[in-house]
C-alpha cells in the first residue's frame, strides 16, 4: 500500500539518484517491520540511519512514512529518537499519515522512563499538524503535572508549540494559567525559565485581542514577579539568566534605593563566563540609571573592564558582537574610555570589520593626553597591506585633527602622508588637508607649500582631484603656478570623466580669475567654453550661470563665487543623536550590530519582545485615562514622526558627510538645508542665532536662500502657555513618565556664545530656567557634554512637560527632547523653552 503522494511527488531535479534507493529501503523496512528475529534492532538501526542521512542531504524520503512508523514500535531508544526526528520532519507535509504516529507517541508519553516520556512529548508537539491538536491536550496536561522536571520542562515548551498551532485550543485548556502557577512555584529552575519564555510569547500575542492577557503580561513586570526571578537568578542556566535579565531591564523601579538593590544583586553577573549574560546585565545597569546622570557614569566605569575582557578573550565572532556594543558606549561617552585606548589598537590578523570598528573608537577617544600616541599608531596602519584599512586610518587621523587636539603635530603627519608617494595615501590625505584648511585656515601656508608640489597627474581619484582643485582655486594667491596647473587641467577637460571634478574645476578657475586675472583669463575662457559644451546638465548649467554672471558684473560675480569665508567650526555629524539614542535603547540587540534602530531594518511583526516595553507603557497610560485608543495612536504617530525626522536628517547627513569628507561646495549646501530645517522648525525665531556656517556659503545653490544680513526677524510673540511656578515631581515619577511617554518634539538648537560661557558655572542655567517655572530634576556630564532633565507643569492643570536637554559646549550645539502628557500643547511649550534658552546669557 504505497502512500498516494508517491505517484504525484516527482523527485527533486537536483537529486535524481534518490529514487531507486528509496524504494530499496522501502522493501527492506517492510521485511523488518514484522520480524522478531534476534539482532533485528541492529539492522533496523542501520536502515534508519540510512533514511535519516538521505533526509539530511535533501533526498525526499517521505514515501517511507508508513514503513518507518511500523518499524518504530520498538523499545530501543535510539531507534525511537531517529524515528521522532523523521516524523517531525515529514508530518507537516503528510498530515494523514501523521495520524499513524499519534498512537505510539501517546503510548510513549506514558512510559515509565522519564527520558522517553519527555522525548515523546517533545516529538508529539513538534508534529505541528493542525487537525491533530486534540491529541496533544491530554499528554500535555499530564506532562505539566509530571513528577520529573525534565518532562515538565519539555511540556512547558510544548504548550508554546501548541499555542502556535492552535491558539484557541491552548487557551481553552487553560494552559497559560497552569504555566503561571508553575512559573511561580516549581522548584526546578529550568521549568520556571521555560514558563517565563513561553508566557511572555503567549501573552504578548494574546494581548492584542484579550484584555486579560494584556494585564497578565503587565503583571510579569510587577515588583513581586521581577524580584522573585532576580532572587533565584543564580539557579538558572546561563541562557535563562539572559531571559530574566531582559525582563529586569524593562522593569521600572519606584525609587533609587530599589535601583541600587537590584544593581548590588546583579553585580556578580558581570563576572559571568558567558558573554551573553554579561551583556544582558550591562543593559540592565544602563537602563536603570538612565535618569541618574552621575550614577550612569559610574556604571560606565564599572562595566568597562568586563567588556574589554570579553573583547580580548573569546572567538573573533564573539569579540565582534561585544565590540559593536562597546563601540556604541564609546561613542556615547568617549572620555570614560580615553585611558583604555590601547585596547582599540588593531591586531594584524583581525578581520577588517573589527579593525574598522576599532579605528572609529580610537578616533572617538582621542583627547589632549593621548592624541600623540593614537596618531602615531594610526600612522603605522597607513603603511598597512590592507588598503581599505590604510585609507580608513588616514581618515581617522584627519578626524582627530578636526577635533582640534594637538593639530600642530597632526598636520605634519598628514603632510608626510602626501610625501609617501602611494596613490591611495595621497588621495586620502588630500581630501583631509582640504577639510583641515576649511577649519584651520591659519595652516594654509604650510599645507600649500606641500600641496603645490603635487602634480595633478598623479592624482586619479575624483574625490582627491576635486579636493586638490578646490585648494588650487581657494589659495591661488599663494601658489605661483596655480593658474597654469588649472589651465593644464582645463586642457584635459574631455578626459575628465567625473562631473564632480569638472564642477570644481569651473569654480576653481573662477576663483583664480578674481585673484590673478591676467594669468587665468585664458584658462577661464577655455573652461567656460568647455563647460557650456558639456553633456552633463549640472556642469553645463554652472558654466552658463558663471558666464552670465560675469557678463552682468564682474564684482558681483566675485561676491557670489568667492565671498570671504569663515572657518567651519563643526562638521555635520554622521548619525543623528535621535537615532543613536534609539539604538542605545535597544542595547543588546541586533540594532547595535547594524548600527541602525530596529524600525529601520525589521518588519513590524518580527520586532519581537523588544516592542514589549513600548506597548506596555502605552497600555498603562490607557489604564489611567480609561481610553486605550488615543495613546496608541499617538505612539504610532510619534513613530512615524520619528521616522520622518530621521529620514530628513539622513538626507542632510548624506550631503553633509559627502561634504565633510570630500567636497567643499556641497557641504555648505548641507549647512544651508540644515539651517533651513531649523528655521522651519522654530518659526524663524532662531534666525538671529543661525549657525555661523551659513555665512560661509560659497555655493550657488545657497543663493536662492536669504541668509546673513536679513536675519533680523522679530522675536516670537510671548507664548500663551502659563506654567505653575511651584510644580513638584519626584524623580521616580519622572523616570516612569519619561519611559512611558513618546517624544513629542525633538529639536536641535544652537546656543549663543554668551550662553555657553555662562554654562561653566553649574547652576546658572538651572536658575535661569527656574525663573520661568521650568525646574531641573537632574543634571550632569563632563565638559564639553552636559545633560539636563527639566520638568514643568501647566498652571491651571496637572499636565506635565518633561525635557531632556543635551549640550556640547565646544560646538554650542544642543538638542532638546520634549515629552508631554498633553501632546497638543507641547508645541507651545517647545517655543517657550527655546525662547528661554535664547535669553540665556543675554543681558
Amino acid at each position, binding site marked *: 500500500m504505497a502512500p498516494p503522494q508517491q505517484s504525484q511527488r516527482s523527485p527533486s531535479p537536483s537529486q535524481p539518484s534518490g529514487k531507486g534507493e528509496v524504494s530499496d529501503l522501502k522493501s527492506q523496512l517492510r521485511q523488518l517491520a514484522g520480524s522478531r528475529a534476534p539482532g533485528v534492532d541492529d539492522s533496523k538501526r542501520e536502515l534508519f540511519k540510512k533514511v535519516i542521512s538521505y533526509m539530511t542531504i535533501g533526498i525526499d524520503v517521505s514515501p517511507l512514512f508508513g514503513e518507518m512508523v511500523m518499524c518504530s514500535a520498538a523499545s530501543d531508544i535510539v531507534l525511537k529518537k531517529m524515528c521522532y526526528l523523521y516524523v517531525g520532519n515529514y508530518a507537516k507535509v503528510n498530515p494523514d499519515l501523521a495520524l499513524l504516529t499519534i498512537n505510539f507517541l501517546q503510548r510513549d508519553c506514558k512510559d515509565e522512563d522519564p527520558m522517553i516520556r519527555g522525548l515523546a512529548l517533545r516529538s508529539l508537539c513538534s508534529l505541528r499538524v493542525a487537525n491533530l491538536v486534540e491529541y496533544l491536550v491530554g499528554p500535555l496536561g499530564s506532562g505539566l503535572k509530571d513528577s520529573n522536571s525534565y518532562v515538565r520542562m519539555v511540556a512547558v*515548551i510544548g504548550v508554546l508549540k501548541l499555542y502556535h498551532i492552535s491558539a484557541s485550543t491552548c487557551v481553552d485548556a487553560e494552559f497559560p494559567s497552569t504555566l503561571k502557577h508553575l512559573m511561580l512555584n516549581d522548584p526546578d529552575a529550568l521549568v520556571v525559565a521555560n514558563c517565563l519564555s513561553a508566557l511572555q510569547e503567549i501573552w504578548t500575542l494574546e494581548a492584542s485581542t484579550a484584555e486579560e492577557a494584556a494585564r497578565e503580561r503587565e503583571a510579569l513586570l510587577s515588583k513581586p514577579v521581577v524580584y522573585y526571578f532576580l532572587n533565584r537568578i543564580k539557579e538558572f542556566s546561563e541562557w535563562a539568566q539572559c531571559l530574566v535579565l531582559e525582563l529586569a531591564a524593562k522593569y521600572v523601579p519606584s525609587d533609587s534605593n530599589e535601583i541600587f538593590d537590584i544593581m548590588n544583586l546583579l553585580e556578580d553577573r558581570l563576572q559571568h563566563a558567558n558573554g551573553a549574560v554579561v551583556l544582558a546585565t550591562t543593559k540592565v545597569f544602563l537602563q536603570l540609571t538612565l535618569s541618574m546622570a552621575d550614577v550612569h557614569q559610574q556604571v560606565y566605569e564599572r562595566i568597562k573592564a568586563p567588556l574589554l575582557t570579553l573583547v580580548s*578573550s573569546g572567538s573573533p565572532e564573539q569579540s565582534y558582537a561585544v565590540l559593536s556594543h562597546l563601540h556604541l558606549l564609546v561613542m556615547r561617552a568617549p572620555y570614560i574610555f580615553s585611558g583604555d585606548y590601547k585596547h582599540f589598537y588593531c591586531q594584524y590578523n583581525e578581520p577588517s570589520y573589527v579593525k574598522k570598528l576599532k579605528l572609529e573608537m580610537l578616533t572617538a577617544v582621542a583627547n589632549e593626553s593621548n592624541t600623540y600616541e593614537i596618531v602615531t599608531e594610526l600612522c603605522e596602519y597607513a603603511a598597512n597591506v590592507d588598503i581599505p584599512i590604510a585609507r580608513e586610518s588616514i581618515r581617522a587621523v584627519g578626524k582627530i585633527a578636526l577635533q582640534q587636539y594637538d593639530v600642530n603635530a597632526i598636520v605634519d603627519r598628514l603632510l608626510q602622508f602626501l610625501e609617501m608617494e602611494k596613490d591611495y595615501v595621497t588621495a586620502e590625505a588630500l581630501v583631509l588637508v582640504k577639510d583641515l584648511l576649511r577649519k584651520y585656515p591659519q595652516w594654509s601656508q604650510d599645507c600649500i607649500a606641500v600641496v603645490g608640489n603635487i602634480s595633478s597627474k598623479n592624482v586619479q581619484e575624483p574625490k582627491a582631484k576635486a579636493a586638490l582643485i578646490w585648494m588650487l582655486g581657494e589659495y591661488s594667491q599663494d601658489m605661483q603656478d596655480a593658474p597654469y596647473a588649472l589651465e593644464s587641467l582645463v586642457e584635459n577637460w574631455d578626459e575628465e570623466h567625473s562631473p564632480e571634478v569638472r564642477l570644481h574645476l569651473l569654480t576653481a578657475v573662477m576663483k583664480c580669475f578674481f585673484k590673478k586675472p591676467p594669468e587665468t583669463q585664458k584658462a577661464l575662457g577655455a573652461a567656460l567654453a568647455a563647460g557650456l559644451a558639456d553633456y552633463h546638465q549640472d556642469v553645463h548649467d554652472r558654466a552658463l550661470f558663471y558666464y552670465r554672471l560675469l557678463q552682468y558684473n564682474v564684482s558681483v560675480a566675485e561676491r557670489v563665487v568667492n565671498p570671504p569665508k569663515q572657518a567651519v567650526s563643526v562638521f555635520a555629524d554622521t548619525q543623528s543623536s535621535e537615532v543613536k539614542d534609539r539604538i542605545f535603547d535597544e542595547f543588546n540587540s541586533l540594532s547595535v550590530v547594524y548600527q541602525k534602530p530596529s524600525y529601520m531594518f525589521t518588519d513590524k511583526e518580527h520586532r519581537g519582545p523588544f516592542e514589549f516595553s513600548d506597548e506596555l507603557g502605552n497600555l498603562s497610560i490607557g489604564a489611567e485615562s480609561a481610553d486605550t485608543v488615543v495613546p496608541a495612536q499617538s505612539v504610532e504617530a510619534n513613530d512615524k514622526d520619528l521616522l520622518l525626522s530621521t529620514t530628513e536628517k539622513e538626507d542632510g547627513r548624506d550631503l553633509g558627510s559627502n561634504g565633510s569628507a570630500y567636497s567643499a561646495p556641497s557641504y555648505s549646501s548641507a549647512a544651508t538645508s540644515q539651517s533651513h530645517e531649523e528655521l522651519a522648525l522654530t518659526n524663524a525665531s532662531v534666525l538671529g542665532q543661525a549657525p555661523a556656517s551659513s555665512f560661509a556659503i560659497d555655493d550657488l545653490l545657497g543663493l536662492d536662500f536669504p541668509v546673513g544680513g536679513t536675519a533680523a526677524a522679530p522675536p516670537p510673540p510671548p507664548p500663551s502657555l502659563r506654567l505653575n511656578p511651584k510644580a513638584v515631581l519626584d524623580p521616580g515619577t519622572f523616570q516612569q513618565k519619561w519611559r512611558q511617554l513618546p517624544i513629542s518634539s525633538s529639536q536641535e538648537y544652537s546656543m549663543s556664545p554668551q550662553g555657553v560661557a555662562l554654562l561653566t558655572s553649574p547652576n546658572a542655567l538651572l536658575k535661569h530656567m527656574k525663573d520661568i517655572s521650568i525646574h531641573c530634576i537632574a543634571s550632569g556630564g563632563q565638559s564639553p557634554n552636559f545633560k539636563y532633565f527639566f520638568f514643568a507643569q501647566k498652571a491651571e492643570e496637572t499636565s506635565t512637560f518633561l525635557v531632556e536637554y543635551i549640550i556640547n559646549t565646544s560646538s554650542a550645539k544642543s538638542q532638546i527632547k520634549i515629552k508631554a502628557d498633553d501632546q497638543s500643547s507641547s508645541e507651545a511649550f517647545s517655543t517657550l523653552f527655546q525662547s528661554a534658552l535664547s535669553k540665556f546669557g543675554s543681558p
Partner: protein
Amino acid sequence: MLQCIFLLSDSGEVMLEKQLTGHRVDRSICDWFWEQAVSQGDSFKQLPVVASPTHYLFQVFREGITFLACTQVEMPPLMGIEFLCRVADVLNDYLGGLNEDLIKDNFVIVYELLDEMIDNGFPLTTEPNILQEMIAPPNIVSKMLSVVTGNSSNVSDVLPGATASRVPWRTADAKYANNEVYVDLVEEMDAIISRDGVLVKCEINGEVQVNSHITGIPDLTLSFANPSILDDVRFHRCVRFRPWESHQVLSFVPPDGQFKLMSYRVRKLKSTPIYVKPQLTSDGGTCRVNVMVGIRNDPGKTIDSVTVQFILPPCVLSADLTSNHGTVNIFSDKTCTWSIGRIPKDKAPSMTGTLVLENGLERLHVFPTFRVGFRIMGVALSGLQIEKLDLLKSVPYRFYKGFRALTQAGEFEVRS
C-alpha cells in the same frame, strides 16, 4: 529566537539541518549564504551577523565547518553567537575533533545533542558535563561496553542526576577510587612591538583550568599569593562571588571532570621573554631583510616552539631567505615561516636574505608585520601564583593536588 541551525561543510554542502520552530527555514538560505561567502573571498571574512533578504544569520566558523543559525526576530546577537560557539565546543568534545567526516559519521549524535541543547529556538542545557550524562560520547569505552553487554544504545537510561541535584552543574553521586584535582594556569601573551622596538602594548589573557575527580560533593577554596595583579576576572557559575569580593578567594563546588574555573586579564606588563628585531633596508629594487631573535628576560624555564611568521607584501616578486638556526619556509600564499624551536644558548638565531621588488619600485612601502610564537612550560608570565587549594571539610579519603603552568604567545606582533 533561533529558527533553524545548519551545519555546512567547507564546500558549502548542508551536512545537517535542524528546524527549531514552526516557521520552517528553507535550505535555499544556505545557498544564498554560500554565494555571499564565496564572493567575499572566504567565510572568515564574513561578518558574524549577516542580514539576508529573509532572515538574520549568525555564523561561526570552526575548522572548516560553518555553523549557521537563522532568526527573523530581534534578539541579543551575542546570545546567538555564544550558543553556536558552545555547540561547536560540545561537538568538538564529543567527536574528538571537528571535521566533515566526523560529523557525517556521527550525525545521529549531533541531532541528539542539538535536541537537548535547544528547544523551540531557546537554548536549554549547554553544560558539557550534564550533556554527557544524557548522551554518552561515542568513545572507545562505550563501544567496548556495547560489544560486551550487547546494549549499543548511547543514550543513558537514567536521567542525569544533576537535573535533580542541589548543585545543578554536578552529579550528586560521583565516586572515585583516586581522588585528585589538577589546576592549570594557561596564559597567552598579547603584545605589540612598534617599528622602533618600543613595547606598545603587552597584556596577558589567562585561564585557570581545573580537572577534578573527587567523591561526593567537595567544597574547594583556591587562593592566590598575589590576586591584586588581576585586572578583570570572569568565573564559572560554580564560583561564589562574595568570598572573592571580600578576600579574593575562589570558593566553589567543582563540576566533575575538566572545566574552566576562571579567566582573567593582566594589563600593562613591562617586558616580553624574547625579543625579535627585524630590519629592512631597501635599495634599488631590492630589500635586505635581517631578523634577530633572542632571550630578553630569562623566565627561568626553556622557551620552546619559537616561530616567526610574516606575509610578504604583494609588491615582492621573490624572496631568498636563510637562517643560521632553524628552518625557513616560504609558501605559495607568500607566507614565510621561520621555525626556530628552542633558542640555543651559544648563539643568537638570525634570518637574513633579500626580497626582489616589482619592476619600477625602488623602495618597499608596505612593511610586513612579524608574528611571533613561543611556549614556556612551568611559568605563568603574568606572575600569578597559586597559594593553596583546600577542601573545606575534612574527608575520609586521601586527596591529591597537582599544579601546572604554561605561557604561550597569543597575538604577539612585531612591526617593521
